[in-house]
C-alpha cells in the first residue's frame, strides 16, 4: 500500500518538476531573446550614429557659410550623444570602451564649442578646421572597426549578447570575446588624434587642470597635524595618520576613528603645499533637528571667521540627514565670485561642524584682474524678461563650461505665480548668460 502511494506521489512530484522546468526554460529563452534584441538595437544605433557623425563632419569641412556650418556641427554633437549612449549600452567591458567614448564625447563637445563660437560671432580658424579634420579621421577609423565587427556578428563568429559573469570586472585579455578586442583596437594613439584644448567640459585642459590658487610652501606632516588639530579643536594625539593623497591637490590625511565604539569616523585633508584645510568628512550620528537654519548658518559663519577664512557670503544651502550644507561664496568689491566656493556642513542637533570642502575654492581662486563692466546695470536690467519682478541686483562672476568665467549682473526675481529665478546678464556683451531656477524644499534653497 505504502509503496503504491509513494510511487504515485513521486510521479506527481516528477510531473510538477517537469512542468516547472519547461516553464523556466521558456522563460529564460524569452529573456535571452529580449537581451539579444536590445544589444542588437544598441549596436545598430552606434553604427548609425558614427555614420552620421562622419558625414556631418565631412560637410562641416567643405561648408562655406557660417549658418550651415553651425547646423552640421550641432548634428555632430547630437549624434555623438546617441553614439556614447548606445556604445555604453553594449555588454562590453568599460575598459575597452574608454577610448571610443572619449572620441565620440570629445568630437561632439568640440563641435558644440565651434557652433557656439559661430554664435558669438567669432570666426572658425584654420586650426579649428585642422582639428575637425583629425577628428573626422578618428571617427572614420572607429566606424571601420565597428563595420568589421558587424560582419563577424552577422556571420555568427561573434555574439554581441555576452552573458558570462567571470572576471568581467576589467577586460578580457584572453581575446575570447571578439567584441571586447574590437573596441580595445580603437585607440587614439594609433590615429593621430589631436590634443584638444578648448572651452568645453571634455577639453584636455579640464582633465589636466591643477589648482589656480598659489598654495604656498611645502609643510611637514607634523605641521599639518597641528593645523588639523587646531581646526578640529582637538588634541593632535587623538589624530591618526591616514597617509597622503595625490591627485589635484596633494594632501596629508588624518583620521579620528571611533567606529569600533559605534562612534564617529572623521577624516581631514591638509594640503602639502601651504597647509590649507582642504576637506573634512564625518559620519557622526546626528539627532533630531533642534535649531533653526538661521542659527546653523550663524554657526557656519563664525566657524569660518574663527579659522581665518574671510569675505565669504552665504549663498544657497541644502539639508539632508539632519545636517545642512551651506555654500559660501567669496565677495570682494561688491562682486560675488561663485567659482571660489567653500562648503560647510552643520549638524542641526547641536550646531557642530561636521563637514568642510575648500578644494573647489583652491582649484578656482586666484587674483583676477577684472576689467570694469562696459554695460550698466540699468541697461542689463532691460534685457531681463518683463515677467520677472526683480527684487535684488548685483555683480557676480560665474563659472562657465570648461574653465572659463564670465562677469555678469545677477538679477533675482519672481513671476506672478511666485516662481523664483536668477538671471545672469553678461556685463560686457549684455547677452543673457544663464538663468537659474530657485528650488525651495525641505529646509533647502537650491538652484537648477
Amino acid at each position, binding site marked *: 500500500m*505504502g*509503496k503504491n*502511494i*509513494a510511487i504515485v*506521489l*513521486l510521479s506527481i*512530484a516528477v510531473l*510538477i*518538476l517537469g512542468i*516547472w522546468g519547461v516553464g523556466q526554460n521558456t522563460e529564460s529563452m524569452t529573456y535571452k531573446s529580449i537581451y539579444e534584441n536590445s544589444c542588437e538595437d544598441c549596436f545598430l544605433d552606434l553604427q548609425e550614429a558614427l555614420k552620421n557623425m562622419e558625414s556631418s563632419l565631412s560637410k562641416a569641412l567643405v561648408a562655406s557659410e557660417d549658418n550651415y556650418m553651425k547646423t552640421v556641427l550641432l548634428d555632430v554633437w547630437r549624434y555623438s*550623444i546617441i553614439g*556614447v*549612449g548606445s556604445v*555604453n549600452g553594449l555588454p*562590453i567591458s*568599460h*575598459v575597452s*570602451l*574608454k*577610448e571610443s*567614448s*572619449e572620441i565620440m*564625447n*570629445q568630437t561632439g563637445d568640440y563641435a558644440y564649442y565651434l557652433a557656439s563660437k559661430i554664435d558669438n560671432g567669432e570666426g572658425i580658424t584654420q586650426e579649428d578646421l585642422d582639428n575637425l579634420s583629425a577628428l573626422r579621421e578618428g571617427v572614420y577609423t572607429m566606424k571601420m572597426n565597428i563595420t568589421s565587427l558587424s560582419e563577424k556578428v552577422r556571420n555568427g563568429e561573434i555574439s554581441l549578447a555576452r552573458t558570462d559573469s567571470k572576471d*568581467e*570586472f*576589467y*577586460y578580457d*585579455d584572453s581575446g575570447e570575446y571578439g567584441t571586447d578586442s574590437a573596441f580595445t583596437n580603437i585607440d587614439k594613439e594609433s590615429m593621430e588624434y589631436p590634443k584638444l584644448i578648448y572651452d568645453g567640459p*571634455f577639453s584636455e585642459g579640464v*582633465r589636466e587642470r591643477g589648482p589656480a590658487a598659489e598654495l604656498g610652501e611645502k609643510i611637514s606632516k607634523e605641521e599639518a597635524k597641528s593645523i588639523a588639530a587646531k581646526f578640529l579643536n582637538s588634541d593632535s594625539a587623538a589624530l591618526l595618520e*591616514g*597617509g597622503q*593623497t*595625490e*591627485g*589635484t*591637490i596633494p594632501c596629508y*590625511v588624518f*583620521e579620528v*576613528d571611533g*567606529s569600533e565604539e559605534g562612534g564617529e569616523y572623521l*577624516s581631514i*585633508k591638509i594640503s602639502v603645499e601651504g597647509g590649507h584645510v582642504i*576637506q573634512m*568628512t*564625518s*559620519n557622526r550620528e546626528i539627532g533630531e533637528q533642534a535649531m533653526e537654519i538661521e542659527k546653523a548658518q550663524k554657526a557656519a559663519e563664525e566657524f569660518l571667521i574663527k579659522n581665518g577664512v574671510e569675505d565669504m557670503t552665504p549663498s544657497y544651502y*541644502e539639508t*539632508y*540627514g539632519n*545636517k545642512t*550644507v551651506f555654500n559660501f561664496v567669496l565677495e570682494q568689491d561688491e562682486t560675488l565670485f561663485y567659482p571660489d*566656493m567653500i*562648503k560647510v556642513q552643520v549638524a542641526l542637533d547641536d550646531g557642530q561642524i561636521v*563637514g568642510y*570642502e575648500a*578644494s*573647489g575654492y583652491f582649484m578656482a581662486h586666484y587674483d583676477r584682474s577684472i576689467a570694469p563692466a562696459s554695460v550698466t546695470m540699468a541697461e542689463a536690467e532691460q534685457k531681463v524678461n518683463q515677467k520677472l519682478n526683480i527684487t535684488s541686483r548685483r555683480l557676480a562672476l560665474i563659472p562657465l563650461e570648461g574653465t572659463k568665467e564670465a562677469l555678469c549682473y545677477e538679477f533675482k526675481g519672481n513671476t506672478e505665480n511666485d516662481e523664483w529665478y536668477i538671471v545672469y546678464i553678461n556685463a560686457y556683451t549684455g547677452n543673457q548668460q544663464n538663468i537659474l531656477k530657485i528650488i525651495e524644499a*525641505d529646509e533647502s534653497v537650491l538652484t537648477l
Partner: protein
Amino acid sequence: MRRNRTYTILLTCLLIVILATSFVTTVLAQGVVYYGSSASAVRQVQTKLKNWGYYGGNVDGIFGYKTEQAVRWFQSANGLAVDGKCGTQTLTAMGLYDLIDSGSGSSGSSSGSYDDNVYLLARCIYGEARGEPYTGQVAVAAVILNRVKDSGFPNSISGVIYQRGAFDAVADGQVNLTPNQNALNAAKDAMNGWDPTGGALYYYNPVTATNQWIRSREIIATFGNHVFCL
C-alpha cells in the same frame, strides 16, 4: 524492504515540501500581501479596507479569512481580478505603493525624499563599500561622479553605474539592497562636491584584485580597504 519504503515516503514528502516552499517564497517575494505576510503590511491593508467599509474585523495584523473576504470585495468593487491576494494591482489601487516591492513592509531608509539619481548612487555605495570607513564611501561616490564628468565614460550616473563590468555590486545584484542613512549621506556629500580622492577614476581592493591592468594604474589615495587611482 519496510525501511526502504519509509525512505521513499520521506523522500517524496521532502520533495513536496521543497516544491511548496519554493512556490510560497515566490509568492511572498513578489510583494503579495496574503496569508502569512508580515503584520505591519497586513495592518496597512486592513486599515485601508476598514476605512473604506470593506472590512469589519479588527486591525490586528493577521491576514485571516475575514481579511481575504474584504480583499475580494474590494477587488470586485474596483474591477480588479478577484483572487483575495493583494498583489501589485490591488496594492496600487489601495495606494499602498511602498508595499509593492518589499511585501514585508520592511522599514529602512525611505527613498521618498531623495532624487532617483542620488538614491541609485547611494545603492551603489551601499552595495560596493558599506563596510568601509565613511570617507571611503564618499570616495566611491566621487569616483562615479568623476566618471560622469570624464569624456571616457557615459555622461550620466545611471550610465556609469550600469556600464558593463564597472561595478561588482551591479553584477551580483547587491546594488538592489536598501541603502542606509550613511550611504545616502555619502551620496549627497559627493554630489555637493566632496571628493576625498582628488579626481580618481578607478578603485580596487589590493588584497583581492588579481587583474594586471587595474594594478598598473597610478594610485592617488587610500581609504580603508580600497586604493583609488587615475
